[in-house]
């Protein structure tokens, strides 16, 4: 009767919106632009190779064999931390499915009451009280959710990231809740490695010069000059960065909050997340639990839900059949379809029926009518300013 269709098993990462690239069948998740990351890798590996080739044999013999051994361990740690930061999910929040989005719309509509025609509806903000401090949660037009506290939308990756710190081009990924400690350990160990190589380069050149003369030393080990140059310039930026992040960690702040001046003290606002104790803050950030990824990248897409395989692929694990059933029977019988209410912040072409558009379009910007292509971030003012500040960071 019907032709046999051989359907390839599709994993959820293939259908995730946003501008990430995935490798190794969804195990690796990075930003789209990876050029600077390759540069970082090249600089680290290149400089260390030169160190192992030129300095280590001499130092092992004339000083101590532990010097190269420690250098190798430090180098491996740096690479492990770099790869861990670059390849892991920073804490991306999946976009709201149509039902959740329309539920939120209805709540907003109810909260705003009747807005007379011609008047602007109020901006979409939800106030929550955290530790006796009022925090405003902003609505994300791209992800259709009210962002949790400390989350922010990264315009480069087009995702909302939990505890968003910044987007780092050097690691080719966002830095957020899940990979902040790896990022910090990366900068710290890289500082140590840079100082270590710089120091022993100088020691080596001095020791050799005493025997052979300075110019002969440079001729014998030309790599040293290159290493010293790279280390010298790297030192300032990386050590400075480590110091800055140590300061942020001790105050339990993110780079994003620091740049925006969220807790700068004006209007008597204080950081509600800080424990007011440096040690406690450090422990929470560095020794806190290892948060799991809520994007089920390697889960399989439901085969029977090709019609309802909408938008942000529901990050469902195979934990219970009941859950998978609920996600696949969802859309067709939904009663509540509140239309998107345009207000001053709504981007121009995202006007009509949110709930009706359930077809998955091939482009990452789903649920938009095929009118002029919208830039990845909608117009809300804080997103625009945040994207500018993010681009400036590092």
């Amino acid at each position, binding site marked *: 009767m019907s032709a046999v269709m051989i359907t390839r098993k599709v994993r959820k990462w293939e259908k995730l919106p946003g501008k990430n690239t995935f490798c190794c069948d969804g195990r690796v998740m990075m930003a789209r632009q990876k050029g600077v990351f390759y540069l970082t890798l090249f600089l680290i590996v290149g400089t260390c190779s030169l160190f192992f080739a030129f300095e280590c044999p001499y130092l092992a013999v004339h000083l101590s064999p532990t010097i190269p051994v420690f250098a190798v361990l430090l180098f491996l740690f740096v690479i492990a931390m770099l790869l861990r930061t670059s390849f892991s999910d920073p804490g991306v929040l999946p976009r709201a499915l149509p039902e959740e989005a329309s539920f939120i719309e209805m709540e907003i509509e109810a909260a705003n009451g009747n807005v007379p025609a011609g008047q602007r509806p109020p901006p979409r903000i939800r106030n929550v009280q955290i530790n006796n401090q009022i925090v405003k949660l902003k609505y994300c037009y791209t992800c259709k959710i009210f962002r949790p506290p400390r989350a922010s939308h990264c315009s480069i990756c087009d995702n909302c990231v939990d505890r968003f710190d910044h987007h780092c081009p050097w690691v080719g990924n966002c830095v957020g809740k899940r990979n902040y400690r790896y990022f910090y350990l990366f900068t710290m160990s890289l500082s140590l490695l840079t100082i270590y190589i710089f120091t022993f380069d100088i020691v080596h050149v001095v020791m050799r010069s005493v025997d052979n003369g300075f110019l002969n030393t440079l001729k014998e080990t030309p790599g040293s000059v290159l290493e010293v140059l790279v280390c010298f310039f790297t030192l300032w930026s990386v050590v400075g960065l480590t110091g800055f992040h140590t300061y942020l960690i001790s105050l339990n702040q993110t780079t994003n909050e620091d740049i925006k001046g969220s807790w700068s003290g004006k209007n008597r606002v204080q950081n509600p997340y800080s424990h007011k104790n440096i040690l406690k803050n450090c422990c929470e950030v560095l020794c806190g639990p290892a948060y799991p990824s809520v994007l089920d990248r390697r889960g399989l897409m439901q085969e029977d839900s090709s019609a309802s395989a909408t938008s942000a692929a529901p990050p469902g694990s195979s*934990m219970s059949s009941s859950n998978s059933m609920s996600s696949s*029977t969802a859309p067709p019988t939904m009663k509540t379809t509140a239309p998107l209410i345009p207000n001053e912040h709504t981007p121009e072409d995202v006007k009509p029926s949110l709930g009706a558009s359930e077809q998955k379009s091939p482009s990452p910007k789903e649920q938009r009518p095929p009118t002029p292509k919208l830039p990845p971030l909608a117009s809300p003012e804080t997103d625009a300013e945040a994207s500018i500040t993010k681009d400036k960071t590092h």
Partner: protein
Amino acid sequence: MATEFHNLQELRHSASLANKVFIQRDYSEGTTCKFQTKFPSELESRIERTLFEDTVKTLNNYYAEAEKIGGQSYLEGCLACATAYLIFLCMETRYEKVLKKIGKYIQEQNEKIYAPRGLLITDPIERGMRVIEISIYEDRGSSGSSSGSSSVSGSTAR
């Protein structure tokens, strides 16, 4: 008659999805994972308030246990750091262990309490830990919405 389902299979075959309720996060204590225990009005005729609150409170306790910062989390963190986090390739983190417990708990709650009342809880991790999604089902055979509170008392006898 009112919606009465004896198991999840029956729910799947004879019910159609009527509505969904989303229980939002409670941020009053910070960014730790906690859900509001406020009883939504849509569920008033479907389930007792105490059962619902018990479920949400138990879930909150599980999440608090997973995110607790204390001796065990320090030990796990330091050990992992010493091995350059390679240990996570073979070992399951404490959070993941608790998530599995949560998955089992939700399945058990669905089977015992929610499915007989025509409701279904979706594990929050499938919604990005933002909401607890409760799906409300209507019996396909019945016309219109379910009739009031008689279903609640009738369906628990097992």
